């Protein structure tokens, strides 16, 4: 046997080579200067507006300043950007025509769903037209036998499940914003949700896509079986945050509604023992559908809202465990969960008595983010993932960071996945506080990556974390990502400035700026 030499294991170690600032990420590249706004037009050419109106109709092409103002951000209210125009197409053909028209006038474009994203993925990058999919809301086909549905991107996540419930099926990915977010947006962000623990994220449920490519052509990816020889282009497209093209039709996998569902609430003095109980469950061999933890401050906010579910306000943390599957297995699994929670000293365990109570628990969990609007004018919803075993220590660390910066913190997270959502309450009008929020956010991300975690588990990189990519990846790692983007979106016209650090991109989109025509290898 040849001697086993350990290759570099970058996931585990922080990158000594990768420096701590975005600037150094760019190394000695000659075009290393920020240029996102380089020479982008400040308003849409009149002729283009005429073309867009002809394509989608006058009432579906918004250009007045008030209209554009309302579209300046999605769920992330920081760093707003006003689009040049907003178009609301209804069909694939209209999307393709809009793309062609924008290209003709050298105008960038950004796809947008319901605007519930939390990383600014649907922010209009400087000088771009927003292509909003909120009118593409048709369910085109449902095949109950082969368990798939074909939908337009504007179909609302929860409404798809409602529409197929009578067939005994549902659409499994359930982001907390599911009552408003669209399947198209879910595809762009590879959205997760509480039930990803058992069912996986959006990527596990997308079989095929119809995409308007950045050059305006219509391309089909994947097929109804969900498998295709060769690189998984559907898989690469899901989670690409609208930077590879605009999805216009989605074939989703449908899942049978489990025969039995049991939801348990375990009440703990503190989040740390709750996290340890999660670890015990993971080790026990039972795979719950979901394991969620909400902390005291979150409970307070939720219980004050329309989503109140009777959670105990004096509890330090509540662990929600949902089991589903065959009825014959429920009893044993419930016993396992009880044992795991009791071993960590939980105060009490309740089982949802009926479907109504179960749904109430979930509405409380899913309304948690919005409910925190009660705590302060603004809310920074963070998203990071750590290996599950590090949850207890990282929660302590995050608490310490927020205390140090004098910030109000509430935690609600997908404990089974190690997916944290530290929510920081603030008031953006207070510049000093805003600066502390940003600083604390950065420290949280660094703490997570230091233990082998990543900077986002389900909200995406967008504009929010684009310049933190270096915490996880070194410049070499990013290079193939540029290759992927360039293969779909060679001139960078589609959703520029998102997901991977911009500087290279800006230069890419403007070859003359870099003074040569090819990227050196």
């Amino acid at each position, binding site marked *: 046997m040849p001697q086993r030499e350990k290759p570099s294991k970058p996931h585990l170690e922080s990158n000594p080579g990768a420096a701590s600032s975005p600037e150094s990420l760019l190394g000695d590249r000659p075009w290393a200067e920020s240029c996102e706004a380089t020479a982008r037009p400040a308003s849409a050419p009149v002729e283009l507006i005429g073309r867009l109106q002809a394509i989608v109709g006058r009432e579906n092409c918004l250009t007045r300043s*008030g209209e554009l103002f309302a579209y300046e951000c999605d769920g992330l209210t920081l760093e707003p950007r006003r689009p040049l125009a907003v178009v609301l197409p209804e069909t694939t053909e209209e999307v393709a025509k809009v793309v062609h028209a924008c290209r003709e006038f050298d105008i960038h474009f950004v796809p947008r769903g319901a605007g519930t994203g939390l990383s600014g993925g649907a922010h209009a990058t400087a000088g771009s037209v927003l292509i909003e999919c909120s009118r593409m809301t048709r369910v085109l086909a449902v095949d109950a036998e082969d368990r798939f549905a074909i939908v337009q991107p504007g179909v609302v996540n929860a409404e798809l499940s409602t529409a197929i419930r009578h067939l005994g099926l549902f659409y499994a990915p359930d982001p907390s914003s599911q009552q408003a977010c669209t399947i198209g947006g879910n595809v762009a962000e590879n959205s997760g949700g509480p039930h990803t623990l058992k069912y996986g994220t959006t990527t596990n449920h997308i079989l095929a896509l119809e995409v308007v490519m950045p050059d305006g052509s219509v391309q089909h990816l994947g097929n109804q079986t969900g498998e295709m020889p060769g690189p998984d282009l559907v898989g690469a497209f899901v989670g690409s945050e609208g930077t590879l093209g605009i999805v216009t039709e989605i074939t989703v996998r449908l899942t049978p509604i489990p025969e039995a569902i049991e939801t348990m609430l375990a009440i703990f003095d503190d989040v740390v023992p709750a996290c340890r109980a999660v670890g015990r469950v993971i080790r026990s061999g039972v795979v719950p559908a979901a394991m969620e933890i909400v902390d005291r401050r979150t409970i307070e906010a939720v219980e004050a809202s*329309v989503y109140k579910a009777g959670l105990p306000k004096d509890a330090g943390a509540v662990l929600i465990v949902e089991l589903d599957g065959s009825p014959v297995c429920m009893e044993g699994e419930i016993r396992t969960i009880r044992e795991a929670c009791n071993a960590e000293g939980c105060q009490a365990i309740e089982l949802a008595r009926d479907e109504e109570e179960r749904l109430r628990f979930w509405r409380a969990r899913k309304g948690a983010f919005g409910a925190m609007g009660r705590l302060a004018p603004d809310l920074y919803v963070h998203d990071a993932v750590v290996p599950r075993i590090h949850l207890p220590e990282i929660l302590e660390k995050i608490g310490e960071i927020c205390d140090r910066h004098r910030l109000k913190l509430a935690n609600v997270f997908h404990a089974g996945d190690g997916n944290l959502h530290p929510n920081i309450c603030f008031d953006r009008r207070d510049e000093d506080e805003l600066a502390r929020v940003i600083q604390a956010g950065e420290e949280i991300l660094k703490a997570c990556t230091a233990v082998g975690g990543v900077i986002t588990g389900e909200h995406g990189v967008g504009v929010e974390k684009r310049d933190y990519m270096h915490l996880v990846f070194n410049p070499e790692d990013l290079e193939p990502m540029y290759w992927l983007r360039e293969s779909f979106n060679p001139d960078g016209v589609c959703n520029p400035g998102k997901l991977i650090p911009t500087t290279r991109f800006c230069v890419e989109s403007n070859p003359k700026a870099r003074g040569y025509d090819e990227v050196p290898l």
Partner: protein
Amino acid sequence: MSADLSNSYGGAPSLASLLDRSLYTDTLDCVHCGLCLTSCPTYRATGRETASPRGRIYLMRGLAEGLLEDTEVLEEEAFLCLGCRACESACPSGVHYGEMLENARSAIRTEQAREGRLPLAAKIERFALREIVPRAGRLSFVVSLLGIAQTLRLDRLMMKVVPARLAEMMALAPPVPAAKDRCAMPPLTSAVGERKGRVALFEGCIMSEFFGRVNDATRLVLSRAGYEVIVPEAQGCCGALQAHSGDLNFAHDLARENVRAFGDDLGDIDAVIVTSAGCSAALRDGEAWLGESGAKLAGGVRDILEFLDEVDLDLEFKPIAKRACYDDPCHLIHAQGIASAPRRLLNKIPKLELVPHANPEACCGAAGIYNLTQPDMSKRVLSPKVESLAAAKPQIVATANPGCAMQIASGLEEAGVNASVVHPIELIEQATRP
């Protein structure tokens, strides 16, 4: 007229001065999560962010903070809003959207009047809502005229000659009831059997003209249930329509009149019973509108269905063998959170089969006089409602608000669906008739 009207807007905040008002602080409750989007009928119909609660609030905030100067879009979108407040039921942050909307509309109208650009339609609307609707005699006169026109079949002829908007209004109006059903209610109805309490009935303006039968059914059921019912004579319009149209100050005046009519401390009245969801929601706003002085009346208000569900109803129900759908009025479910009480009551009626239909909590598009002011959007909002009701194939559609009843009835008729539209209290009255 216009000069007169603009003067009378005085006192309400202008858009520019929103910054100093509570409205701005209220906009800060919204964290821009978007959970309200799909609950909003106008967002669903248009897909526009600006036609959603989140978008409208963002515009208000932007104007208040001076980040946005153009008021045009908010002026349009604020009045395109149905005011159904379904977004409040969806909002985890507890944003008081309905209140913000009324304040914003009031500010907009004030600003428009000040700048001498109040739209003609708004002037007409204001005139009607100030000079006709709250004045029982004048309203009764107009309704009588409509009744005569309907009897002589003149209405169809007139529709061809009057402006389209007016024709729409006339088409929406239900048949004017016979004169005997439009006469005043008896000031006192004694309890049948042992007296359990004393309640006051709030008649409402549109209710008493077009739905006197509902008020009468209410009176009878209350009496059978052991309540003495008084109908204070000095009571007037609740002010809901005025507040929704941006005439908040006038609405506050109406509210003050009602406080006087029902007595500052309500006296020995256990509750003020209201049969129209729009009115009960507005009366409950009394405290927000008038402060301390409005609190007592606001606290005493009960929707009839809510009241009957709360009290120990000791009545025998006879069967009504019909298939019925209950459709939630927005101002009952979203503004007052009353959803299960009406269903529990209807379920007491033997053989009445309560069948579910899709989205009973969605707005029907009536929204006060929205179907008159925004007829196109009103129809777009109505059509999914009619579809979902038609699919459930009911013989009876029960809903607890006059505007909704008229709107749904006209929608069902147009779609050729043969179902009668009634207030749930009418069914309860029928079932409990001795």
